[in-house]
């Protein structure tokens, strides 16, 4: 299948002994000059990149307290060493969170700390693990900072809350600024600026797709559910990952959102300008690009005259939306202040369920036994609802409302300790397939256990990256790519629309009777 080995699954997630260099490679494809150009970065590695990298590190240290504190505070206690899914799956010690951090920390110590500067003069920098900025170091940065999905699992377990995601973002930003960017991320951000979304779907293609989906829903239910695009004067602007327009199982989720809005009786629209929820500016740690991407959403909301913004199922996107949007593109004083700004589609649906406004026939999902994968950035970098931990309970409440068969995976693999899918943070590209498959090992272990013990047939997720990643890696672990479903796909299956054709109602009733 490929030139790497898929990790063997054991009953428990197995912590490997370190095998130095096991994931050594030249890293993902390097951004071409035009990819760099669109983001305002140098076209290729600049001449004096060593000095420039050190200088950019200094600038970043002035701007981000977190980076400075994290680089200073690590005591090398080892608590994080068995927490990263990429280490567990690959055994490369530079994939241990502290191993990854030290690639940057060693350079920080040499050039930006008094101890490093002093000991370097005596030739003793090795005492404190300080290193010069060399080509070897840069190659390690490029390789290993593209083996981190910025999932923050390490930050939960670190006694000082050191978040490797912040270090990875800083390193990628420095590399971009010296002309050594990653193709996948930077090309995609370029597409967002040029066309409006990650997949590069232009407005006519979007309109066409949405029309097709309206027909599908009508064929199935007999109800005309609209999926409007660029309609002015609606109440809600829906911003969703562009995968929702395009691929299974994402698109079933989108139909679910449409049905929920329809039943709620609210007017809503998508925007061709903000036809993408994801914000890859975060992946590359570029505040400027992240802000520019976020501003599209503000502009779309103003142009279309909406009162609310709702986000579709997407993990890192929800982090940027929940945690950063107000900072990057706020204040949103022109929106209706009675609703959270922005709101997650799960919050929206959950709220309707609480108010008993949706009618479901959960037996429509009886052919499946579900489990739920907590997406890393929803779990550890955001919230839903008004209580801490709502990001765990709200999606589960929805699933349990629309499905009769639900089982959780092992407690230490979900909730705040959830394992990343292995494809987040800008790694969802074919040139990183080995990393993605190995990094999925812990999740695949937990999933296999509930499949064998509880007869789980499907895993639901609320993230476009998780869905795409699992579709791709499940087969490597001898499971079907269609095991992964959208939460709103389950909602869609079970939701009974007002005026839904009688055939379906009959079916639903017979199903209920047979219980």
């Amino acid at each position, binding site marked *: 299948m490929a030139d790497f080995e898929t990790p063997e699954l054991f009953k428990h997630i197995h912590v490997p002994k*370190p095998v*130095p260099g096991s994931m050594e490679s030249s890293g993902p494809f390097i951004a071409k000059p035009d990819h760099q150009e669109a983001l305002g970065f140098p076209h290729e590695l600049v001449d004096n990149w060593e000095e420039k990298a050190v200088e950019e590190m200094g600038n970043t240290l002035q*701007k*981000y*307290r*977190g980076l*400075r*504190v*994290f680089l*200073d*505070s*690590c*005591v*090398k*206690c*080892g*608590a*994080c*060493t*068995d*927490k990263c899914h990429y280490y567990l799956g690959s055994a490369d*010690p530079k994939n*241990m969170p502290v*191993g990854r951090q*030290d690639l940057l920390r060693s350079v920080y110590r040499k050039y930006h700390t*008094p*101890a490093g500067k002093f000991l370097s003069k005596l030739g003793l920098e090795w*005492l*404190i*693990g300080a290193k010069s900025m060399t080509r070897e170091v840069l190659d390690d940065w490029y390789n290993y900072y593209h083996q981190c999905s910025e999932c923050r699992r390490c*930050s*939960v*377990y670190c*006694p*000082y*809350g*050191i*978040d490797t995601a912040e270090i990875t973002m800083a390193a990628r930003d420095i590399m971009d600024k010296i002309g050594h960017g990653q193709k996948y991320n930077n090309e995609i951000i370029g597409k967002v600026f040029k066309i409006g979304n990650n997949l590069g779907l232009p407005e006519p293609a979007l309109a066409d797709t949405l029309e097709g989906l309206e027909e599908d829903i009508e064929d199935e239910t007999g109800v005309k559910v609209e999926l409007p695009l660029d309609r002015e004067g609606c109440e809600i602007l829906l911003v969703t990952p562009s995968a929702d327009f395009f691929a299974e199982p994402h698109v079933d989720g989108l139909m679910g959102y449409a049905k929920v809005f329809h039943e709620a009786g609210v007017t809503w629209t998508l925007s061709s300008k903000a036809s993408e929820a994801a914000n890859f500016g975060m992946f590359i740690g570029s*505040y*400027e690009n992240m*802000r520019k991407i976020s501003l599209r959403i503000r502009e779309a909301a103003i142009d279309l005259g909406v009162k609310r913004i709702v986000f579709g199922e997407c993990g890192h996107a929800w982090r940027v939306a*929940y*945690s*950063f949007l*107000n*900072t990057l593109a706020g*204040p949103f004083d022109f929106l209706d202040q009675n609703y*959270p*700004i*922005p709101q997650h589609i799960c919050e929206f649906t959950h709220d309707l369920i609480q108010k008993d406004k949706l009618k479901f026939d959960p037996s429509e999902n009886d052919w499946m036994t579900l489990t739920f994968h907590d997406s890393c950035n929803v*779990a*550890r*970098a*955001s*919230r839903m609802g*008004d*209580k*801490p931990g709502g*990001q765990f309970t709200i999606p589960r409440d929805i699933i349990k409302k629309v499905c009769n068969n639900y089982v959780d995976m092992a407690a230490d693999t979900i909730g*705040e300790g959830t394992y990343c899918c292995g494809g987040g943070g800008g790694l969802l590209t074919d040139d990183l397939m080995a990393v993605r498959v190995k990094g999925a090992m812990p999740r695949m272990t937990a999933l296999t256990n509930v499949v064998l013990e509880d007869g789980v047939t499907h895993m639901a997720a609320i993230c476009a990256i998780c869905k795409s990643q699992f579709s791709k890696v499940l087969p490597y672990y001898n499971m079907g790519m269609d095991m992964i479903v959208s939460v709103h796909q389950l909602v869609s299956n079970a939701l009974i629309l007002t005026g839904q054709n009688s055939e379906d109602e009959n079916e639903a009733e017979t199903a209920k009777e047979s219980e």
Partner: protein
Amino acid sequence: MSTFFALLFWFATAVIVLGLAFKIRQYWVTPAPLKIPTTPAPTTQAGVVYRMAKEVIVFESLFKSNKWIWIFGWMFHMSLFLVLARHLRYFQDQPWFWVNIIQPFGKYAAFTMVIGLVGLFVRRIVVARVRYISAPSDYLMLIMLFFIGFSGLIMNYVSHVDIIAVKEFFNAWMGFSIGDFPVSVPLIVHLSLVALLLIVFPFSKLLHAPGVFFSPTRNQVDNPREKRHIAKWAAELENNSKG
């Protein structure tokens, strides 16, 4: 010898006070431009104080993470705290009453402190993952702390030192005069290493002590939707791009 130690300690004290003041100021003035608490996180300031207290007093995250590191690490830090508190009496004419109360506990804490350090040291060597991430300074730091504790224990239980004289020396030292230093090998080892510790503190990973309080993943309130958070440099970026 008296002059040497008096000067050394004035120097070491100045280094740690000024060094820490510099670092704390640096952490204080560097902005955290984005809301990045590790969630689930408290939604109120009081909640953050509670979270931080659990982190600093019982090492909550470390407890979640690894019981061996937690038990040795917590044992060492709590013991160190007791031992330090006990040492206050060498600097006070009339020790506070609680300083007197904890004297016996502080003495036994010296044992648990040293045991904690040995545990951490053994882990660093035995566990391959931890060995991989250890620089020479990581071992040296533990060795330094070990010998501080060990020399203290020697003075307590094996080779007693003229503690009245030590107290007189440090009381004089605090008044910027040089008293008589009671020369003894364990005391020289003990105090030299303590001075080294004070000097190294603001330049090393010991900065985790002030650092933890400034860690944005632990000290931020989870309220980004309710309250707009914006750093000064980010606001400037905004204004410039409008202009």
